[in-house]
């Protein structure tokens, strides 16, 4: 429900005797939710078409009785309210939309009995896999059996036997016995991923989920089917059998895969990340994310992770490395290659550093094909952050041609690279041989290998910060796990460099930094990190409206609008 609705657009419906004003057509499961009334359901999903197949959401429905002559509601003299004609048969709430005067009842004996019946039916052929099932702990069947089932079984027949391990694609495993045939995965593939690859074969209780002949569920959104599967029928090959979900803690995060800024949840235990799932944001990613983004946590423990500060390839203490870097900065002739993957806060400090030593600063663009859904053409998550903080003035390019020219002209002696591989950005041997490199980053590459000073930093999973996505939406991420011992928070290193370069002492903690950000950066004037809404905050982007951004249309984003 958008806040732009006028009261005139709203109609009143009554749920369990309580009135609520909702936009016409609101789904009754959603309307009840607003009142805190849960209508249990399996097949209904707010982002998919409604098929009404599970029958768990049956409720009693009534409409005001109309006088056949006048077409006016008939009043009940006892209550003074319109008389309600209750429909004898139960109705599914998921396919019932708010209409004027609609009444539903969710707590009657009939409704309770319907739920008990559906729960019993769903369980009669369901295996008793919970102890070995990955879904246990987040299983809708378990939850609703507890909430709405009878608690005992009347079933003494043989259960159906179905395939237990069918690989639908590289990342999704199917256990047909657990499948409750809700068709959410089928609808997702067809309607959202636009890859109509799943369907049911056979009939009745013997129906089984399958890929079309010769096809696989291998699109880059396949694991969303695992998320929305209400049971443990679909499991992620990556997460399967790794960890019981109730041991995991969740941390809200932002996927750094592209400028879409998909909202995510990072699941970790004792410093180890086990999986990443989408976090609902109806204005950004709905309830989806790409498979590729889910695997990014693996970079936390990747072999080429930078774990120790070094100078000339020799491990040193952090303070020593910082001092060496400071000396290079003070010597002048410095250029900075910032990063569209750094946070807003980091980019702000990078700009402070550039200001302190009057160094020119660039960013390296990272542009690919957008997929029209949740991966945009801009694979840097935060180019807009660099614009808003003033680190850069226009959209970046892929090649550092200007920097190369300045090096060739002998103007630049030291380059600070924030995680960028300069060789990939167009600098060749000729230039690299003429400069000293200070490298801040998380992973080794050709540039870090040749750097004078290497300062290991943190991945998005290990630190706090914000990104500004393609909509100019400021979104927050929080640390899920600690970083390696020898790595330091980018903010601490950057503030250290500013100080070493003679730029004075700056706050290096998020809250302190935000006081400065809010006072210095106009679009951020009223923002504090802690009060940022979970779904982000749209910033005033009018200053940047003329820039040639590379993004095409994706979910909830159209550059032409």
């Amino acid at each position, binding site marked *: 429900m958008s806040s732009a609705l006028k009261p005139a657009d709203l109609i009143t419906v009554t749920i369990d005797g309580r009135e609520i004003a909702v936009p016409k057509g609101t789904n009754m499961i959603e309307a009840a939710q607003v009142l805190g009334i849960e209508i249990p359901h399996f097949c209904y999903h707010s982002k998919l078409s409604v*098929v*009404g*197949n*599970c*029958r*768990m959401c*049956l409720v009693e429905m009534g409409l005001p009785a109309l006088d056949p002559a006048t077409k006016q509601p008939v009043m009940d003299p006892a209550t003074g309210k319109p008389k309600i004609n209750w429909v004898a*048969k*139960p109705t*599914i709430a998921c*396919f019932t939309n708010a209409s004027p005067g609609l009444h539903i009842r969710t707590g009657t004996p009939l409704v309770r*009995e*319907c739920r008990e*019946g*559906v729960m*019993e*039916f*769903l369980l*009669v*052929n369901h295996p008793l896999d919970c102890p070995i099932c990955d879904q246990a702990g987040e299983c809708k069947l378990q939850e609703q059996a507890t909430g709405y089932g009878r608690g005992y079984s*009347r*079933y003494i*027949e*043989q259960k*159906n036997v179905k395939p237990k391990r069918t690989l639908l694609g590289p990342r999704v495993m199917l256990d047909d016995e657990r499948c*409750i*045939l809700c068709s959410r995965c089928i609808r997702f593939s067809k309607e959202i991923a636009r890859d109509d690859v799943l*369907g*049911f074969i*056979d*009939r*009745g*209780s*013997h*129906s089984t989920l399958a890929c079309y002949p010769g096809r696989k569920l291998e699109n880059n959104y396949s694991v969303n089917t695992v998320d929305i599967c209400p049971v443990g029928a679909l499991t992620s090959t990556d997460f399967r059998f790794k960890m019981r979900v109730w041991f995991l803690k969740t941390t809200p995060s932002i996927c750094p895969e592209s400028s879409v800024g998909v909202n995510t949840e990072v699941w970790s235990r004792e410093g180890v990340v086990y999986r990443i799932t989408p976090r609902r944001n109806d204005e950004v990613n709905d309830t989806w994310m790409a498979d590729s983004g889910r695997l990014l946590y693996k970079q936390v423990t990747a072999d080429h992770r930078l774990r120790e500060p070094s100078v000339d390839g020799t491990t040193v203490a952090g303070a020593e490395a910082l001092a060496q870097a400071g000396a290079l900065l003070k010597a002048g002739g410095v250029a900075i290659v910032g990063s569209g993957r750094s946070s807003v806060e980091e980019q702000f400090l990078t700009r402070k550093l550039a200001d302190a030593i009057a160094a020119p600063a660039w960013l390296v663009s990272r542009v690919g094909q957008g997929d029209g859904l949740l991966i945009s053409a801009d694979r840097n998550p935060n180019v807009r952050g660099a614009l808003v903080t003033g680190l850069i003035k226009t959209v970046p390019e892929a090649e550092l041609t200007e920097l190369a020219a300045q090096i060739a002209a002998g103007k630049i002696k030291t380059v600070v690279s924030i995680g960028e591989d300069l060789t990939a950005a167009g600098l060749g041997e000729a230039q690299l041989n003429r400069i000293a490199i200070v490298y801040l980053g998380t992973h080794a590459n050709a540039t870090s290998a040749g750097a004078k000073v290497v300062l290991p930093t943190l991945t998005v999973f290990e630190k706090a910060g914000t990104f500004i996505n393609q909509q100019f939406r400021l979104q927050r991420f929080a640390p899920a796990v600690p970083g390696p011992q020898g790595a330091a928070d980018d903010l601490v290193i950057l503030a250290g460099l500013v100080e070493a370069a003679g730029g004075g002492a700056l706050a290096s903690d998020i809250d302190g930094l935000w006081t400065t950000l809010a006072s210095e950066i106009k679009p951020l004037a009223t923002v504090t990190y802690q009060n940022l809404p979970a779904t982000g905050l749209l910033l005033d982007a009018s200053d940047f409206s003329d820039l040639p951004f590379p993004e095409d249309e994706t979910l909830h984003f159209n550059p032409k609008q």
Partner: protein
Amino acid sequence: MPHPAERRLIFEHVDEPGYTTDLPCYLAHGGYEALKKSVARKPEELIDEVKKSGLRGRGGAGFSCGVKWTLVDRKSGKPIYLIVNADESEPGTFKDRYIIHQDPHQLVEGIMITCWANQVRQAYIYIRGEFPRGARLLEHAIAEARAGNFVGPNILGTGYSCEIYVHRGAGAYICGEETGLIESLEGKRPYPRIKPPFFPAVLGLYQCPTIVNNVETLCHVKHIAAMGGEAFARIGTLNNTGTRLLCVSGHVQRPGTYEFESGKITLGRLLNEICGGPRPGRQFKAVIPGGSSSKILRFGERFKVKQRDGTMVDWGVEDIPMDFDSLAACGTMGGSGGVIVMDDSVDIVAALANLNAFYAHESCGQCTPCREGSLWMKKITARMVRGEARPEDGALLKSVADQIAGRTICPFGEACAWPTQSFVQKFGDEFRNYASRPNPGPAATELA
């Protein structure tokens, strides 16, 4: 030879020596005269005739044909389709196939009159996969009718064009349910649609307004066009007009398909007089009067029924007139006209096991109660027949059926629940005492 008590409109030429399925034969018997007469009239007049005729659908639900045609959305600007339901899969029902096999042009003519009346330009005959000969005969008849200018472009010089296509099903009972049929015709799994909002009259085939009528219903349209709605309404009884095909199977001397004026024959007369009564030495035990989904009647039951004029009657099973309203008043239904007769040799639990196996096999599997409930009921009755019955199984069966009926996407839910509900209700003693029954019949080994 037809029984003297019969009144044959649709079956006029069925089983008639020398009558063929060819167009010349049909024309020689007055064929397509009704169509010629019809295209000379305004479409609305024909709809009016059908309304006046009181014709009720013969596919199962007995819904008024005139009302169905009136509900069609004619303002949408979308094409209107006609679908001829020739899926005839309800166990105990075998009437549409006689029409198709012996008098296909009668159906084609009925279709064309219906199309003209509703300004349909494309009609589909959805015929069950197990009727390959029927499909061939229809294709042939349509080709002949095309050549005769009764089907196709510029029909009978009127400027009106309409095509008929034959579509063969792949063999699923649920494809007879009109919205499942539509999905199947669109090339998808026959998952029935949710009504509302997907009433065929508004959002049918390809989301266009669509009329779905049974084969027999459309043949009646031909006779209504020929004789006029009022004349048709004088046949049969009030609210149950015209004739009705009844398919009698099971334990009678002369099973078969018969045609009577609706409501003018009682169940007792049908079974005893027309069908020759029970087999020697046997007595009638039960009858399913309107296709396998209708509730069973137990001989010996009494029904207190209020007549239209307010008087009360006290009927035994034999006294029930074979029409929609009387059968409904007795707690069952006229359905598809399939009368399944069981004599006292029948093991009632085994009979239900047979039906339950059918419904479990045919449930499309879309919605939970029907999908799981139908198989569960099948498993219970199969176990009982296998010799592992428990006294409480009847009550359990009934309770499972109660959890299905009224809670599903399509009426298959009721169709599969009603047999169990009625068998257990009316033969509760047999279910309770099944384990200790004196002589387990041969069915036990067959079904187990």
